[in-house]
């Protein structure tokens, strides 16, 4: 098996959901395990929500966000690319302190924390003005 799905993601509030629901249909069509689909979906959602919310200035003339999915017998892979400001969520997001009380807890960084816990391989690179995040989940 070697199947691919490419999609563009807009800047609207509903866009990450639209993208991850498309991923879910793609994954279900290929009968991936539900638990894996949920975790990968959550990771895509958190990363895309970050990009949609913070990567671009309001007057950015040509914001582009793309998601490329590739499924083989060995693994599920996603490549997220955007031409927004340089940001490596794997290093630049604050690490949440899970030991704090509700009063002192901050939610910043929690999405990335979940992403790191739920996806096996994560890699970031900045290439020619693009942020590129690579997610790999062995099957």
């Amino acid at each position, binding site marked *: 098996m070697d199947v691919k799905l490419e999609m563009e993601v807009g800047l609207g509030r509903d866009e990450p959901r639209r993208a991850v629901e498309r991923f879910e249909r793609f994954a279900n069509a290929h009968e991936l395990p539900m638990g894996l689909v949920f975790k990968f979906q959550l990771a895509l959602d*958190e990363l895309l929500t970050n990009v949609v919310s913070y990567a671009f200035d309001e007057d950015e003339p040509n914001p582009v966000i793309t998601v490329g999915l590739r499924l083989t017998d060995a693994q599920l892979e996603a490549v997220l690319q955007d031409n927004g400001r340089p940001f490596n969520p794997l290093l630049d997001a604050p690490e949440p302190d899970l030991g704090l009380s*509700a009063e002192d*807890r901050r939610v910043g960084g*929690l*999405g990335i924390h979940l992403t790191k816990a739920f996806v096996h391989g994560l890699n970031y690179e900045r290439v020619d003005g693009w942020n590129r995040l690579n997610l790999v989940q062995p099957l």
Partner: protein
Amino acid sequence: MNVETSYSGSTAVAVVDGRVDSANAKDFDEELSAIIDRGVSSLVVDCGGLNYISSAGLRVFLIAIRKTNEAGGGLALCAVPDHIREVLEVSGFVRLTKVFATADEAQASFSG
């Protein structure tokens, strides 16, 4: 996402279903805030029909935990599906709120 709430004095049970993510977390926050603003200090959120939650939804839980704690009560969850429970564990939320099997058990925890 849909929320249906039943009230009993200063306690309420809110049954949530569907997805809570960045697209509708604001709506979810408004739903829970409206319940607390009616004088509810002990809030049970029944997650039996919740099939998806992202960090945006956890943020709403955190706000509700703070508000109900401040009011002298608290927030409890019940009927949490396994995959949602894992999100609560990984994010450390199991330390911030109690998780019960049923709404009755969750409500009973407040009257003790």
